[in-house]
């Protein structure tokens, strides 16, 4: 469905300098799968999505969407894909139904056909009762569902979603995930970006982790956890002894050999190992007495933080 090799995107910045947002990535998305781009802010996810949406021209490398070259067949590609952008681009002054109607017309669909699809889609995203409401009066979750409905008006083969649930409350997120899962069952190829790891684990068959414009890891959520983390993580907190700072730094070397990897956080130690309970037991055997110990499974979040670091990215 989508094939990119050596794909690059650079922007002209101030003073004639160039900023490379995407620095040569290879991606293949197959029909019917749900594919995720993960990465911190500024990793190049949105730039990649805008190129795949056949909106932003490619700066280097090759890109084929549905076998077509976006530089030549942009309108043909866009006729067959759906795009749900990160920031809503709905017409806030029009009502819900009109937003869908005019969007269907942009694709050149006959008026009667559009009207029928609008009714179906309103049903699908549970907005039938809001059909006559103005968009500016909708909640964030409803707007997002409307954006998704709008991106489906042309019955796309591929649906691109840029951070589909950012800013939504948990209920709204679950409704969106549910709708996306149904689309996947119907055979729509999903391509999404997210920085929510639970979202990626819920939705994606395969994903890539991007950092600073490059792909740093690729695979299914399970494969990534296996490759870049351990099965379990033991989180140990110690009672503060006389306000003694740097205590965790002092404890870390003593348990270094008990886990595949030990990470020191300001308030706790993370011990990555195959069997967390066993590791905790061994820690106790060494005469160390953590105030709280918690054993949990590794998640994509561990993978993500390992690959892209804990430093804040703006």
């Amino acid at each position: 469905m989508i094939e990119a090799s050596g794909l690059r995107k650079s922007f002209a910045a101030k003073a004639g300098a160039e900023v490379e947002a995407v620095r040569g990535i290879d991606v293949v998305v197959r029909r019917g799968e749900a594919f995720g781009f993960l990465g911190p802010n500024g990793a190049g996810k949105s730039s990649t999505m805008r190129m795949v949406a056949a909106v932003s021209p490619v700066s280097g490398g090759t890109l084929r969407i549905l076998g077509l070259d976006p530089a030549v067949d942009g309108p043909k590609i866009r006729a067959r894909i759906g795009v749900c952008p990160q920031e809503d681009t709905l017409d806030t002054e029009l009502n819900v139904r009109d937003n869908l109607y005019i969007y269907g017309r942009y694709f050149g669909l006959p008026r009667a056909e559009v009207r029928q699809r609008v009714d179906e889609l309103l049903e699908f995203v549970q907005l039938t009762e809001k059909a006559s409401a103005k968009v500016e009066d909708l909640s964030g979750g409803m707007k997002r569902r409307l954006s998704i409905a709008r991106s489906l008006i042309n019955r796309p083969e591929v649906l691109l979603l840029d951070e589909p649930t950012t800013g939504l409350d948990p209920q709204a997120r679950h409704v969106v995930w549910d709708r996306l899962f149904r689309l996947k069952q119907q055979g729509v190829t999903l391509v999404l970006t997210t920085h929510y790891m639970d979202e990626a684990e819920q939705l994606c068959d395969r994903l890539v982790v991007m950092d600073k414009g490059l792909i740093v890891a690729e695979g299914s959520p399970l494969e990534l956890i296996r490759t870049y983390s351990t099965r379990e993580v033991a989180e140990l907190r110690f009672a503060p002894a006389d306000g003694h700072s740097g205590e965790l730094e002092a404890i870390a070397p003593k348990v270094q050999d008990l886990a595949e990897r030990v990470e020191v956080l300001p308030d706790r130690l993370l011990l990555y190992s195959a069997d967390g309970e066993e590791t905790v037991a061994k820690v106790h055997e060494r005469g160390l007495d953590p105030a709280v110990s918690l054993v949990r499974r590794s998640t994509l979040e561990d993978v993500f933080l390992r690959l892209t670091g804990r430093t804040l990215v703006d």
Partner: protein
Amino acid sequence: MQRLDVRRAARMSDYWAVAYRRTWRGSAISSFVVPLLYILAMGVLLGGFVKGDPDKLEGATSYLSFVAPGMLAAQSMTTVFGEVTYPVMGMIKWHRSFYGMIATPLGVPDIVFAHLGFVVFRVTLVSAVFLAVMAPFGVFESVPGVLVAFLVQPLIGLAFAAPLYALTAALRNESGFALVFRLGMIPMFLFSGAFFPVSNLDRWMEVLAKFTPLWHGVDLTRMLVLGRVDASLALVHVAYLGALALLGWVLATRLLHRRLTD
């Protein structure tokens, strides 16, 4: 950049129809009332103090018949300022609906073409209302002239709309519009011959006034309504306005494309 496809651009007519259906009532009332107020205040009441000397009024027999065509052309300009500046910035920045549009098969050239088409429709409509309001005041000297003057208004509109569209696409935010209105639209409105003959201005100001697109629009409209057409000068007007429209159109498409796709 993909090319203009007029049939694809025509798909946007539904957008403009839906958007206009929402606002037409308000604009219909103002496009009827405002010309009436202007004609009464400027043409009839203020004009009552002006001696109707055709030698001093570019051939008009009364101030009313001098000022009415001038105001028609000026209205074509002010309508466009309202239709292009803030609405276009809104579609770029505030509700970002342009980004929704370019995610479909529509391209920037289609979007600009359709939008300018809507502006032409609006100018045509308000001009028709203005002429209907003018008619009872007996200022039409030549009926064919009036019809041609009517057809000329969309050209005047485009001569402003297209360059303004380009300017809006190039501006980072709306703060520049205050200057555009105060130092662009209002001085043109006041000094481009709509309310008094530009020959009354200082020589250098007269030359300056004659470079403004509004003067070309006003002079063209007035000579047609008064039935005193100077064919070669009319041709200059049409060429000047047409060139502005064409240049602005090309620029608007390029600048908006750059703004939206980078």
